[in-house]
């Protein structure tokens, strides 16, 4: 992390807000179509409690969905690696879980699990299950065969081989899966909220939209975007920490 890597996004962000302000002033677009940055900012100030409450609900959905999806995905990958029948039976489930659009499943999940956070967590779990499972499974299967030979000659038990060789070797792949999962988990939660809910940023956006409170809608959208970004970078940082030997290599290549 250099100062440059923080300054650049800040400049881009400030530039976009300026451009937004210019567009609003130049086109004299009515505020119920596109509110200016200043009116969105004042809504932030006035409705901070509403925004915070709903953001908290969405955040819980994202975190819970991410945690459950990661655990279930990792467990599936492990089982598929070690049990051939599980591989044959789970693979179609994995493919179907991606072939059916989550948007199409949302009403059913809401019907079964209700309007509370459960159906949104389920949505997030469904949407991240595939990237986590596929990435981790790939990582577990692509262990260098030389390492496995070495472990066999060293009389390692299968559990020791898993713990000391296969698992760490699969961590970079798992990290990629977790990054994708972190990026899409908010989609699952918000789609769930759109289909039917009484709280959350997705709910707040629909609600504000229906009442032509476009500035509040924008404020909710920004809150969601910031939350999703922070969540992504948090997971990205954790994934890097898990595989410090990888970071070392990439630094050498990136910045001479």
């Amino acid at each position, binding site marked *: 992390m250099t100062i440059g890597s923080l300054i650049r996004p800040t400049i881009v962000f400030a530039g976009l807000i300026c451009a937004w302000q210019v567009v609003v002033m130049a086109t004299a677009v009515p505020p119920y179509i596109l509110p200016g940055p200043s009116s969105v900012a004042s809504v932030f100030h006035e409705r901070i409690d509403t925004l915070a409450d709903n953001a908290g609900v969405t955040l819980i959905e994202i975190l819970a969905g991410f945690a459950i999806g990661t655990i279930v995905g990792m467990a599936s990958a492990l089982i598929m690696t070690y049990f051939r029948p599980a591989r044959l039976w789970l693979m179609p489930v994995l493919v179907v879980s991606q072939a059916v659009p989550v948007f199409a499943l949302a009403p059913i999940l809401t019907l079964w699990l209700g309007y509370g956070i459960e159906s949104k967590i389920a949505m997030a779990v469904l949407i991240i299950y595939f990237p986590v499972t596929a990435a981790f499974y790939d990582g577990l299967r692509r262990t260098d065969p030389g390492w496995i*030979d*070495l472990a*066999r*000659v*060293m009389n390692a038990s299968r559990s020791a081989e898993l713990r000391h060789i296969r698992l*760490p*070797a699969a*961590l970079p792949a798992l990290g990629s899966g977790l990054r994708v999962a972190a990026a899409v988990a908010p989609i699952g939660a918000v789609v769930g909220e759109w289909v039917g809910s009484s709280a959350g940023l997705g709910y707040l956006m629909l609600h504000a939209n229906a009442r032509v409170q476009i500035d509040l809608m924008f404020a909710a959208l920004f809150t969601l975007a910031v939350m999703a970004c922070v969540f992504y970078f948090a997971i990205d940082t954790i994934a890097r920490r898990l595989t410090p030997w990888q970071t*070392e290599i990439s630094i050498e290549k990136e910045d001479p």
Partner: protein
Amino acid sequence: MNTGLSSAAAAPSIHVRDASLVYDRTFLFDRLALDISGSAWTVLLGPSGVGKTTLLRLVAGLETGASGQVESDDGAALDRRISYMAQQDLLLPWLSVRENATLGARLRGSVSNERIAAADELLARAGLTAAADLLPAACSGGMRQRAALVRTLMENRPIILMDEPFSALDAITRLQLQDIAADLLADRTVLLVTHDPLEALRLGYRIHVMSGRPARLGDAIAPVGPAPRQVTDPRLVKLQTELLAQLAEAARETAA
């Protein structure tokens, strides 16, 4: 030497009988026999694809698709008495050099302070004291291969199988590592597979050229004098000429 590792008492000789490997309906070798002398270096030379590595893996008990009996002259099982070193260093990138050196103990759940002290002593003999805490990515190719040699020695097993262990190194580093290996493995039963006639002549007690399809083993060439022999030794130079002629003939036979 006092490395905390009692040197293996009277390393056994190994006899391979009726080794056969069918690949694509062709016999790569058919009822091949190989005698590996106890407490000495036996070297296998031969063109690529002749089956040297397969033969070594058969002795190592790794899955090869080859069949055959592998017995030791003391009648005891070979399991847990073999240490294996490959062309790739097979260091785990997430472990430091010292942790890699004690990988066998790690995999068997028996890391102790004594083992770590023993590893430090061997690392010192291999000139790796300063590198003990580095990750493999921070080491040169020669350092990595020395670390792999230390890991192989740390197993403290009477039988050492080496599959082109030094072939990826530059000429000078290769000579240095041959010296270290000859010194530290003097009393072990070693089977070394190599492409390099000079390496074979420097280190081998018995050298066999493997050729043809199905492969046969040539009569043993036995260079005089203790290993590691000097590259400038005129007898070695003369033998190298003969050996190169044999290898050229072997390459022709095998390709035919």
